[in-house]
């Protein structure tokens, strides 16, 4: 059978950063995938070297539009390590609280995207409606829906009042009720189970070999979570389960994420109940002692790693960051192999890269004739839904 190569990207709505996949097909089957990254390289690491430690918080917060708190916390943890700062307990609790609210908003967003990619738009509408509850909370607590600006070196910038804390608890009750419904959907809705099971398989051995992180790794039975393994903020003082699944497929990744939502609600309740009184910030000198430090953070998409080197001045010598998607790229290439083109949208979406609303084009180039056909993401998605409808998967 003739092989066809389909370039997907560099501009692409289902990818966290613009990336370019070249997918080689034999009929419907994906036989090879190659990848070109770097289209969204903005030179942030270089820019960090000409800004002060304090200014960098706001730059690094903008690395990602969803896990902004993850990046800024990961960075300041490294800086505080270098400065030997004893961050007040209350600040650590507030960081944990905002971190978990961010995880709730990110996982609900993912659930909606996943629903949309497989043609289950009711799920998308529901979960994005419910996500507004947590977005409103974040806006109330920090002033922003994303890029919260809550962190500062030595603590946090805003305190949480008693009224706010009660409001969060009320909202968490509603979200928990809704999440229970999603768990019911995920475990009982036959169409969803059939559509997602055995798609994008990634064995446990492959996870360990390819270095996948976060929900992708946990859905293949790898019991790892930086919150428990390398505790930061207030995670050593709250109890929670690390959710894993043995499905090793997109369905398992769904179960892990909805399961993690329930754990996040429990963490939020514990944090609010046990939050100690006291100051929310300590003064840290502008100049940070020379040295090197590495910091890790369990972002909603997986482990985030930051390395900071100081030369004793008020600007860092080097800041290096690694977001979880880069760690999962090798794994997604493996997952795509031997699946149908119709599975590509959900497999890529299942590692949870960020979502941009712009429609982009995909051009199909026929190897034998060289003729080119343009298919946009919308048509590819519709094609994928139709393809499965004919095989009995109908939402």
């Amino acid at each position: 059978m003739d092989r066809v190569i389909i370039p997907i990207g560099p501009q692409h709505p289902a990818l966290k950063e613009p990336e370019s996949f070249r997918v080689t097909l034999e009929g419907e089957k994906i036989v090879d995938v190659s990848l070109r990254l770097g289209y969204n390289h903005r030179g942030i690491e270089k820019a960090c070297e000409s800004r002060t430690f304090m200014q960098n918080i706001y730059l690094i917060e903008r690395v990602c539009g969803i896990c902004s708190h993850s990046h800024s916390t990961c960075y300041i943890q490294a800086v505080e390590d270098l400065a030997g700062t004893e961050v007040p307990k209350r600040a650590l609790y507030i960081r944990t609280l905002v971190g978990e609210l961010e995880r709730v908003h990110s996982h609900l967003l993912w659930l909606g995207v996943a629903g949309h990619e497989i043609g289950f738009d009711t799920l998308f509408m529901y979960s994005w409606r419910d996500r507004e509850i947590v977005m409103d909370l974040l806006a109330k607590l920090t002033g922003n829906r994303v890029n919260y600006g809550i962190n500062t070196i030595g603590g946090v910038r805003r305190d949480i009042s008693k009224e706010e804390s009660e409001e969060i608890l009320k909202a968490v009750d509603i979200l928990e009720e809704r999440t229970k419904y999603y768990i019911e959907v995920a475990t009982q809705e036959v169409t969803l189970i059939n559509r997602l099971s055995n798609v994008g398989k990634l064995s446990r051995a492959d996870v360990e070999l390819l270095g996948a992180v976060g929900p992708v790794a946990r859905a293949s039975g790898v019991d790892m979570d930086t919150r428990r393994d390398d505790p930061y903020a207030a995670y050593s003082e709250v109890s929670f389960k690390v959710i894993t699944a043995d499905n090793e497929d997109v369905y398992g990744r769904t179960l892990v994420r909805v399961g993690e939502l329930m754990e996040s609600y429990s963490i939020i309740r514990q944090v609010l109940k046990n939050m100690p009184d006291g100051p929310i910030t300590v003064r840290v000198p502008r100049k940070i002692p020379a040295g090197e430090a590495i910091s890790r953070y369990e972002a909603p998409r997986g482990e985030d790693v930051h390395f900071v080197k100081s030369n004793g001045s008020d600007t860092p010598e080097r800041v290096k960051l690694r977001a979880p998607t880069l760690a999962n790229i090798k794994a997604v290439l493996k997952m795509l192999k031997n699946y149908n083109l119709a599975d590509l949208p959900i497999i890529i979406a299942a590692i949870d890269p960020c979502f941009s609303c712009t429609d982009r084009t995909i051009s199909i180039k026929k190897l034998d004739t060289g003729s080119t056909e343009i298919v946009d993401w919308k048509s590819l998605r519709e094609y994928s839904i139709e393809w499965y409808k004919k095989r009995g998967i109908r939402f």
Partner: protein
Amino acid sequence: MIIEEEIQQKLIKNYNFLEEKIRIPRARRIYFEFPADKFEGLLEFLMKEILCNMLCTMTGLDAGDTIEVIYHFARKDGIIVNVKISVPKDNPKIKTISNYFPSAEYYEREVIDLLGAEVEGLPEGSRYPLPDGWPDGQYPLRKDWKSDVLEKENK
């Protein structure tokens, strides 16, 4: 800090020149420097004996006359072993570790593009992260590099 000290002892036992050279500034963090030519042996030792099963990332640094590369390895219990090697800037050659950790490929390409290191044994593939038309010999993360190079290029 007991496990960290055990790891330190194991390393010193095998590589006695590391005596007094290993820093453990806080729990779960181990840092040391290592000669670049003996690195591959150490890598196997770390994987087998110290149980470092994950590569968090690699950091490249411009240290004046040398290019430094730090490998951040993690264990399941959250301990990170950070190994720094340095190579001369006029001959910045390192060996690939993508045969041990496939995920190293992208981290190594970063060190190539941004700091101008050469990585021996890295399989063919597209560059990362700089664009295809990027001028040769321009390494943005070197300290003497200024972004006006690009402005001049575009004139």
